[in-house]
C-alpha cells in the first residue's frame, strides 16, 4: 500500500457539520432514563406500603386488643365460677370471710376488665352493631353474679350458725338423757330384784311370796320402770337421727315418732305418780324433750339448716349459670371483633395484591426498557463502534485491514469517530513499513539456514573423533596388573570428562623390581589427553630400561620440554620397589606425595624430593630418596582430584579426611582400601559434579603366605570366597574386614554387608561361647558365593551339635519388664536372611543361608 496524503480521503468520510453530542453526554442520557423508571417503580411501591400500613395499624391497635380483653374477661368469670362452690365446704366464719374477700377481689378485677373492654369497643370503628348490644348484657350478668354471691354469703353464714347450735343441742340432749337414766336405772333395778326374788332389798329378812309379788302393782311398777328407760333411750336415738336427716320431707314422720314416744313416757310416769322420784324424773325428762322437740331444739334447727342448704345450692347453681351466660356473651363479642379483623385483613391483602401487580408490571416494563436500551442505544452508541475498531485492530494484526470497514465509524461526530479516523491513518502507515521488513527478513533467514546446516555437519564430525580418542586413551591404561609376588596392587582412575589427564602405570622392570608411576597432566580435555598420551608412552619406554627414578624423570622431562611451547606440564611420581626386601627408591616431579601407612599406624606423607613438574625446564634435575617397607606396610598414591573433590557446599575433601580414611582402612586389603577411599569420597561429595580426574594406586608389602583374603586375580573362581576363623572372639574384627572385602568383590550394598556381619557374628559368637566343651582350639569356616542375584552363605563348625533354629523366637510384643534377655541373636539370623537350613554332617554343624540381592 503506498502512502497517501492525509487530506485525500473519499467524500463520504468527511465529518458532517452538526451539533456534537459527546460519548459522555450520551451515557448520561441513558443512565437518566434508567433512573427515572426505577424511581417511578419505587414511588408506586411506596404508595402501596402506606396503604398497607394503615390496614395493619387498624388490626393491631383496635381489633386485637378487644379480642384479647374479651378473652381475659371470659377467663375471669370462669375463675370466679370455680371459686364460688368452695363456699359450700367452709368450716368456719373465718374461712368464709377469707374466701369472700378473695371473691371480692376477683369480682373487682372482673369489673375493671368490663370497663376496659367497653373503652376498646367505644374507641374502634367496627362496622358491626353487635358491640353495642353485647356490652350491657355483660354488665347485667356481672351485677347478677355479684348479687348471687352476696346472698350466698348470707346463706353460708346461716348454715355455719345453725350447725354450731345443733352441735350444742345434741350435747345437751345427751347429757339430759344420761342424768335421766342415772335416776331411772336404780329404780328399775329395785323393781326387777323384787319381781324376781321377792326381797325388797338385801337386808330384807323374808321375801314376799309370788302371789304377793304377782299382784298388778309389782308388775305394773316393773313394766312402767322399764318403759321409762326404754322411751328415754328411744327419744335420744330419734333425736340423734333427726340431727342428720338429709331431707325436710323425712323430718315429719320422725317428729311423729318422737311425739309418740314422749306420750308413752308421760303415761308411764303418770302410772308411777306414787313414786317419790317421780317429780325429778318428770322435770329432767321435760328438759330433754325441750332440747329435742322444742323451739330451738334439734329438730327445729335441723329443719332450718336443711332449708338453708337448699338455698345455698340453688345460689351456687345460679352463679354457674350466670358465669356461663357471661362466657357466651363474651364469645359473641370476640366473634364480632374477629369478623372485623378479618375484614381488615382482607382489605390489606387486596392492597398488597394490587401493589404486587403494579410492581410486577413496572419491573417488566423496566426490564423490557433495559433490553431495548441496551440493544439499541448502548449497542449503537457504544459497543458497536468499539467492536468495529477492535475487529479492525485484529484484522490489522493479521495484515488484512480494509479501511472501508470503518467508514461509518469514522463518520461519527463523537470521540469514537475520532478514534476510527486516527486508527485508519496509523494502520495504513504501519502496513507500508511492515511489508518492507518482511521482505528483508525472509532473505536473511534463508542465508542463516544454509549456514546452520553446515555447522551441524562439522559438529557431528568432531563428536565422532572425540569418542574415538576416548576409546584410545582408555586402552593406554593397564588392564591387568602384573602378578607381583609379595606386592598386591590395586589401581583405579575415574575421569572427569570424556578424556582425562591423569594416568598410572605398573612396569615390570626385571624379576625383582617393579616401577609404579602416577601422574597428573595440567588442564583437562583433549589437550591434556594428548600430553598424557605422550607422557605415558615416554615414561613407559624410558622406565623399562631399568634406570633409577631420578634419571628416568630427567630424560622424560627433556623429551616433553622439547616441543612444548604451550607451557603445559605434567606432575609425575615414579618409584621402584624391590619386592625381595621391600625397598623403595623414588623421585617426585611436582606431584603430591603419596601416603605411607605403616602397619597399624597413621598415614604419613612420603618425604619429597623437590623436583619440579615435567615439561617446563628442559635441563631440570631430579633427586632420589629411598625408604624401606616392612611387613604389611601400605603406600597410597593419588592425584589431587581426590583431595580437591568438592561437595555441594564448596568444601574440599582435604588431606585431613584422606589421612583419616587411610588410618581407618589400614588393615583392609588393597582393593578394600581403595574402594573405601572412593566410597567415602563419593559420600562426601554427595552428588556434586566431579571437577577433576580421581586416581589412586594402592600397594602393600606382604610376605605372609596364607592371606586371609585372596588378592585380585589370585583365586580360581571370582564368584566364591572363603573365610577361616579361629574359635576366639577376637577373630570378629577379622570377620568384619573379610566381609567388607566380600562386599567389594561381589558388589554388595552396605546394608547387605551389615546384615551378613550381624548374622555371622551371632553364629561365631554362639559357637565360641557355648559350642566347645573340650575347650580346645578349632577352626570355623565360612564360604560366600554369588550367582547372579543370589548370595549363598555357608557356615560350618565342628562344635557340639546345636541347631539354632530349635530355639523359639523371642517374645517381641511384651513390655520391657517382661522381656527375657537371650534368644535375640538367633532371631536376627532367622530374620536377616531369606532362608536358613541346618544339617549335622560328619560331626559338623552346617548352616546354609541364602539372600536375594535384587531388592
Amino acid at each position: 500500500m503506498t502512502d497517501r496524503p492525509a487530506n485525500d480521503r473519499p467524500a463520504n468520510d468527511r465529518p458532517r457539520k452538526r451539533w456534537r453530542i459527546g460519548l459522555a453526554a450520551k451515557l448520561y442520557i441513558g443512565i437518566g432514563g434508567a433512573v427515572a423508571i426505577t424511581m417511578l417503580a419505587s414511588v408506586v411501591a411506596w404508595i402501596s406500603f402506606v396503604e398497607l400500613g394503615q390496614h395493619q395499624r387498624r388490626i393491631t391497635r383496635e381489633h386485637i386488643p378487644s379480642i384479647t380483653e374479651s378473652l381475659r374477661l371470659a377467663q375471669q368469670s370462669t375463675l370466679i365460677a370455680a371459686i364460688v362452690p368452695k363456699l359450700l365446704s367452709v368450716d368456719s366464719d373465718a374461712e368464709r370471710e377469707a374466701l369472700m374477700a378473695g371473691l371480692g377481689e376477683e369480682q373487682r378485677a372482673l369489673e375493671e376488665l368490663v370497663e376496659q373492654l367497653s373503652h376498646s369497643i367505644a374507641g374502634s370503628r367496627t362496622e358491626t352493631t353487635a358491640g353495642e348490644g353485647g356490652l350491657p348484657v355483660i354488665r347485667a350478668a356481672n351485677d347478677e353474679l355479684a348479687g348471687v354471691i352476696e346472698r350466698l354469703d348470707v346463706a353460708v353464714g346461716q348454715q355455719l350458725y345453725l350447725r354450731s347450735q345443733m352441735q350444742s343441742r345434741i350435747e345437751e340432749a345427751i347429757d339430759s338423757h344420761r342424768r335421766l337414766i342415772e335416776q331411772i336405772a336404780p329404780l328399775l333395778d329395785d323393781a326387777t330384784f323384787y319381781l324376781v326374788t321377792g326381797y325388797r332389798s338385801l337386808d330384807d329378812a323374808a321375801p314376799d311370796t309370788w302371789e304377793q309379788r304377782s299382784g298388778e302393782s309389782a308388775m305394773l311398777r316393773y313394766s312402767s320402770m322399764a318403759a321409762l328407760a326404754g322411751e328415754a333411750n328411744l327419744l335420744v336415738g330419734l333425736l340423734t337421727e333427726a340431727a342428720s336427716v338429709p331431707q325436710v320431707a323425712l323430718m315429719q314422720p320422725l317428729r311423729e315418732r318422737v311425739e309418740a314416744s314422749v306420750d308413752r313416757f308421760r303415761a308411764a310416769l303418770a302410772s308411777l305418780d306414787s313414786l317419790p322420784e317421780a317429780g325429778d324424773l318428770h322435770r329432767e325428762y321435760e328438759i330433754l324433750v325441750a332440747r329435742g322437740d322444742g323451739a330451738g331444739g334439734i329438730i327445729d334447727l335441723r329443719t332450718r339448716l336443711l332449708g338453708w342448704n337448699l338455698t345455698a345450692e340453688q345460689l351456687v347453681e345460679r352463679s354457674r349459670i350466670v358465669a356461663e351466660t357471661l362466657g357466651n356473651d363474651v364469645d359473641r363479642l370476640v366473634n364480632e371483633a374477629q369478623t372485623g379483623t378479618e375484614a381488615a385483613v382482607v382489605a390489606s391483602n387486596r392492597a398488597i395484591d394490587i401493589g404486587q401487580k403494579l410492581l410486577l408490571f413496572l419491573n417488566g416494563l423496566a426490564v423490557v426498557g433495559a433490553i431495548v436500551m441496551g440493544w439499541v442505544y448502548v449497542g449503537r452508541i457504544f459497543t458497536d463502534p468499539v467492536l468495529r475498531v477492535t475487529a479492525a485492530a485484529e484484522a490489522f494484526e493479521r495484515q488484512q485491514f480494509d479501511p472501508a470497514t470503518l467508514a461509518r465509524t469514522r463518520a461519527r461526530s463523537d470521540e469514537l469517530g475520532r478514534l476510527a479516523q486516527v486508527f485508519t491513518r496509523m494502520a495504513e502507515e504501519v502496513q507500508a513499513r511492515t511489508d518492507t521488513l518482511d521482505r528483508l527478513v525472509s532473505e536473511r533467514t534463508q542465508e542463516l539456514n544454509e549456514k546452520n546446516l553446515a555447522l551441524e555437519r562439522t559438529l557431528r564430525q568432531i563428536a565422532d573423533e572425540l569418542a574415538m580418542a576416548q576409546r584410545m586413551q582408555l586402552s593406554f591404561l593397564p588392564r591387568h596388573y602384573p602378578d607381583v609376588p609379595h606386592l598386591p596392587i590395586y589401581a583405579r582412575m575415574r575421569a572427569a570428562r570424556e578424556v582425562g589427564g591423569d594416568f598410572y602405570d605398573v612396569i615390570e622392570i626385571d624379576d625383582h623390581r617393579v616401577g609404579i608411576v602416577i601422574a597428573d597432566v595440567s588442564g583437562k580435555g583433549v589437550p591434556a589427553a594428548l600430553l598424557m598420551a605422550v607422557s605415558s608412552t615416554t615414561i613407559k619406554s624410558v622406565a623399562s630400561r631399568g634406570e633409577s627414578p631420578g634419571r628416568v624423570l630427567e630424560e622424560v622431562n627433556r623429551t616433553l620440554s622439547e616441543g612444548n611451547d604451550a607451557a603445559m606440564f605434567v606432575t609425575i611420581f615414579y618409584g621402584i620397589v624391590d619386592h625381595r626386601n621391600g625397598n623403595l627408591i623414588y623421585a617426585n616431579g611436582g606431584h603430591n606425595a603419596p601416603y605411607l601407612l605403616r602397619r597399624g599406624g597413621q598415614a604419613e606423607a612420603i618425604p619429597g624430593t623437590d623436583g619440579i613438574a615435567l615439561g617446563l625446564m628442559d635441563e631440570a634435575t631430579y633427586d632420589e630418596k629411598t625408604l624401606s617397607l616392612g611387613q604389611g606396610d601400605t603406600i597410597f598414591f593419588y592425584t589431587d582430584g581426590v583431595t580437591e573433590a568438592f561437595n555441594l557446599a564448596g568444601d574440599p575433601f582435604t588431606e585431613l579426611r584422606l589421612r583419616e580414611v587411610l588410618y581407618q582402612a589400614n588393615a583392609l586389603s588393597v582393593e578394600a582400601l581403595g574402594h573405601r577411599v572412593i566410597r567415602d569420597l563419593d559420600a562426601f561429595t554427595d552428588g556434586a559434579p566431579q571437577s577433576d580426574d580421581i586416581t589412586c594406586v594402592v600397594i602393600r608389602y606382604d610376605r605372609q603366605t596364607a592371606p586371609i583374603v585372596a588378592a585380585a586375580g589370585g583365586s580360581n573362581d571370582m564368584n566364591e570366597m572363603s573365610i577361616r576363623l579361629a574359635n576366639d572372639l577376637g577373630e570378629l574384627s577379622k570377620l568384619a574386614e573379610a566381609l567388607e572385602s566380600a562386599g567389594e568383590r561381589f558388589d554388595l550394598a552396605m546394608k547387605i554387608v551389615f546384615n551378613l556381619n550381624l548374622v555371622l557374628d551371632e553364629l561365631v559368637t554362639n559357637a565360641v561361647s557355648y559350642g566347645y566343651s573340650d575347650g580346645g582350639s578349632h577352626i570355623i569356616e565360612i564360604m560366600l558365593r554369588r550367582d547372579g542375584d543370589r548370595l549363598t552363605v555357608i557356615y560350618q563348625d565342628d562344635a557340639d551339635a546345636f541347631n539354632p533354629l530349635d530355639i523359639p523366637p523371642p517374645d517381641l510384643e511384651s513390655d520391657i519388664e517382661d522381656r527375657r534377655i537371650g534368644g535375640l541373636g538367633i532371631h536376627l539370623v532367622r530374620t536377616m536372611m531369606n532362608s536358613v537350613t541346618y544339617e549335622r554332617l560328619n560331626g559338623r554343624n552346617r548352616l546354609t543361608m541364602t539372600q536375594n540381592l535384587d531388592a
Partner: protein
Amino acid sequence: MELHEETLETATVLSPQGRIDSSNAKDFEEALISRVQDGRPAILLDLAELRYISSAGLRVILLAAKQQRGKQGKFALCALTTEVREVFEVSGFGKILDIHAGRTEALAAL
C-alpha cells in the same frame, strides 16, 4: 570400643564409638551398668558414631534399660544409623525403648 561421656544438666550422654560385638560387649556392659547403678536420673545413649552392633550389644542395652527403669530413672537412645536402627526394629526393641532421631529431641523428651 571407646565410650565418650558427657554430663549435662538434664541427662548423662554416653556415645559409644565404632563397633560393639561379643568381643567387647562385656566392657560396654561394665561401663553402662555402672552409670545406671550410680543412680543417674536420666541416661541418653547417642549412637551417632556406632557403626555396628550385634545381639550381645543389644542385650547390654536391654539390661541397662530394665535396671534404670527399676530405679525409676529415664533411659533413651538417639541418632541411630539406618542399619543399626533396622536391627533394633527387627529385634522388637523399637517399640520398647525410647528412640529419637536427634540428640536435642531426645534431651527435650528426657
